[in-house]
């Protein structure tokens, strides 16, 4: 490194919305003011993953981690750290309920348990500069493949590595490539599925925003192995920065001759186009995605026609997820032995026999360290949530973790020691999905969460097949009824029956997995359903129709002095009381909107 220090400023979407770009500018100005321009470089990087601590600056090569920075901290930081060589403890990370700050990034619990493969360049490169990627072995795998390996050898390596699709299904990647290569046809396609629709999952966004070239390199390797000259990247419109980064990366790769005609002078030609999604969850399904790339509404078709034979424009098409493509170059470079040494099971005989390598997960919800992590397959949920995730905020009790998005399920406390891999998650009623993990604590209502997911799948159901369109609607009606206190004991059985019917009869995986959140919540949290139905109570006080709001007279008078904010804010004029006097809620008029609870600063409004 020609510079004494590199200030790696996180420019992921999370940090940018916390003003990291203003921070970068302030840093540059301060460094210039102090005459350090020749010694210190400011580098905007992709997402570091630790979004809850943003904006983040990491000083390399020492790896000193600064968090929650503000522009006003910059002059002091530059003076102390860069001029006087004294890192600033007050800007460092302090673990919850501890006092001593941790200076180095790699000593922080969130980063310590991680193993970076797909995210190998995280926080280390400027994603808009191809030279940074190349400096860290970028495009070396492509060169190796094109100059020293035959397509069959490449497929052999990927098959032996046991790499399985990271988008959710877990289909062995090597087998998919092989089938596509064997399929008849002159023109074939590769597609990168970047339509990351699972709510609560943002690993693909982070990979694209932080390291777009890793995806392009993986796609080029796949294209060579399968015999493809055109690829497509399908990115959802909700990720504008990812689209922009891909565009920049494509242009740079073309300028360097790493995409286009006759790459590395080997006669191999390959190029990639971007297609923007348009806000339809079902387009994450491969056949729906291909319909959308063709310029049609994204409606899926029956699964028995395989896309590796009849895909995009009815031609053989190999579709893989962002993370899968980004992992490919590393396997080529570091070898099968290294990759298979990570993870669970044995894939030497049966490609479905284990889960190899690492997986990126997004941790969100009621957890201290929200963000993006990459861990070896086989880590337990407990390690994920308590060691990496830092536990539940405010000393609350863990209730459930939801994995796999709307197609996955809820896993309760009893399953915290479950190992995270494809088979074990499926066995527990959930699935790997694309890797979203949303943690819930005792303040979350599981019936409400099940209703949330079903509202989502119901809304996103494309309507082509009846079981999904009508089945999810009926299930949702039942759940709504239960949340409104109108549930009857038979509803539980009815929900289960409908679930199995929708799973068995739906056309695509959207319907086929939509009932999973309902089934797992019934399996592990049946008590909550019963309380809603029999006692007409929501234990977490989330289902508001079942709540009764009252005002604690003492708190209202002593602490709040009858401030009257709730009375003025109540949309139904259900609160009575004179100024400086105790206020009261008229239960006849109260529509249970909960505004009083939101606005009372003295915790005088109580829910029961």
């Amino acid at each position, binding site marked *: 490194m020609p510079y004494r220090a590199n200030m790696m400023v996180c420019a992921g979407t999370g940090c940018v919305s916390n003003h990291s770009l203003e921070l970068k500018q302030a840093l540059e100005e301060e460094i210039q003011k102090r005459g350090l321009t020749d010694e210190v470089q400011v580098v905007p990087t992709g997402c570091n993953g*630790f979004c809850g601590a943003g904006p983040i600056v990491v000083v390399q090569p020492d790896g000193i981690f600064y968090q929650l920075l503000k522009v006003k901290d910059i002059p002091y930081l530059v003076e102390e750290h860069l001029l006087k060589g004294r890192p600033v403890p007050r800007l460092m990370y302090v673990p919850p309920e501890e006092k001593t700050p941790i200076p180095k990034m790699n000593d922080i619990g969130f980063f310590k348990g991680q193993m970076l493969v797909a995210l190998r360049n995280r926080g280390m490169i400027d994603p808009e500069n191809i030279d940074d990627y190349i400096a860290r072995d970028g495009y070396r795998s492509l060169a190796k493949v094109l100059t020293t390996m035959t397509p069959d050898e490449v497929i052999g390596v990927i098959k032996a590595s046991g790499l399985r699709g990271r988008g959710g299904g877990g289909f062995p990647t090597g087998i998919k490539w092989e089938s596509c290569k064997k399929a008849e046809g002159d023109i074939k396609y590769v597609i990168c599925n970047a339509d990351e629709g699972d709510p609560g999952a943002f690993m693909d966004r982070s990979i694209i925003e932080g390291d777009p070239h890793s995806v392009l390199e993986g796609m080029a390797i796949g294209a060579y192995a399968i015999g493809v000259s055109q690829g497509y990247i399908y990115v959802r419109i909700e990720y504008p920065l990812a689209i922009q980064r891909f565009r920049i990366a494509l242009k740079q790769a073309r300028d360097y001759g790493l995409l286009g005609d006759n790459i590395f002078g080997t006669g191999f030609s390959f190029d990639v186009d971007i297609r923007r999604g348009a*806000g339809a969850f079902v387009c994450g399904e491969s056949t729906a995605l291909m319909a959308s790339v063709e310029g049609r509404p994204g409606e899926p078709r029956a699964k028995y026609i395989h896309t590796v034979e009849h895909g995009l424009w009815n031609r053989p098409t190999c579709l893989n997820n962002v993370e899968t493509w980004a992992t490919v170059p590393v396997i080529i470079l570091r070898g099968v032995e290294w990759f298979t040494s990570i993870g669970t099971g044995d894939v030497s005989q049966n490609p479905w026999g284990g889960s190899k390598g690492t997986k990126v997960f997004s941790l*969100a919800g009621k957890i201290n360290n929200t963000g993006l992590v990459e861990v070896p397959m086989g880590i337990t949920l407990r390690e994920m949530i308590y060691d990496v995730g830092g536990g539940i905020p405010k000393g609350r009790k863990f209730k459930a973790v*939801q994995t796999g998005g709307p197609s996955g399920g809820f896993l309760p406390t009893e399953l915290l020691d479950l190992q995270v891999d494809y088979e074990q998650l499926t066995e527990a009623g959930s699935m790997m999905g694309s890797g979203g993990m949303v943690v819930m604590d005792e303040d979350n209502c599981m019936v409400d*969460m099940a209703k949330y997911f079903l509202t989502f799948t119901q809304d996103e159901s494309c309507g082509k097949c009846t079981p999904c369109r009508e089945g999810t609607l009926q299930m949702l009606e039942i759940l709504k009824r239960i949340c409104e206190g109108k549930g009857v004991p038979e509803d539980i059985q009815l929900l289960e029956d409908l679930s199995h019917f929708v799973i068995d009869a739906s056309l695509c995986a959207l319907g086929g997995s939509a009932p999973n959140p309902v089934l797992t919540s019934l399996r592990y949290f049946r008590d909550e359903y019963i309380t809603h139905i029999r006692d007409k109570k929501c234990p977490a006080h989330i289902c508001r129709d079942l709540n009764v709001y009252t005002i604690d007279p003492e708190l209202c008078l002593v602490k709040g002095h009858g401030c009257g904010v709730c009375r003025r804010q109540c949309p139904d004029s259900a609160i009575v009381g004179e100024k400086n006097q105790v206020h009261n809620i008229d239960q006849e008029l109260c529509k249970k*909107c909960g505004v009083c609870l939101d606005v009372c600063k003295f915790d005088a409004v109580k829910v029961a």
Partner: protein
Amino acid sequence: MDDLAVQTYKVQEIISRWGPKPDLVIEMLHDIQTEFKYLPEQALNQICREVGVRLATLYHIATFYNAFSLTPRGKHQICVCMGTPCHALGAPRIVEAIERHLKVKCGGTTEDLKFTLEVSGCVGTCGLAPIVIVDGELHGLVTPVNVSKVIDRYSD
């Protein structure tokens, strides 16, 4: 040039940007949506003529995908993220608070055409949940109480 002529000109520009290829029609609709904040009827007719995609197909696409709208939107677009973490941390109450503040129902536009309130799928910045996006600017960690201040910043 009158408004319609300007619109026709701009749509023409968008069509030539992509070339009159039927498979790129979603890309064109994206650009039209960005330009006009909705898909005007005449623009769809124009695409139908120039690109050779049936009007029925265009309406199928326009109504199938959430990113498109057939009615004019307000000057400012408010979008509340409805991802799982946002939901778990109270996004529905944020929507209600905005509905009360602007006197508009979710999916609707205020009478003065200033704001359109919508919900979106997960925007993937779950570390900052719950999230409200106004005109593409992301605001994290909002509460039912402070969200009205966030909105008011755009009300000029």
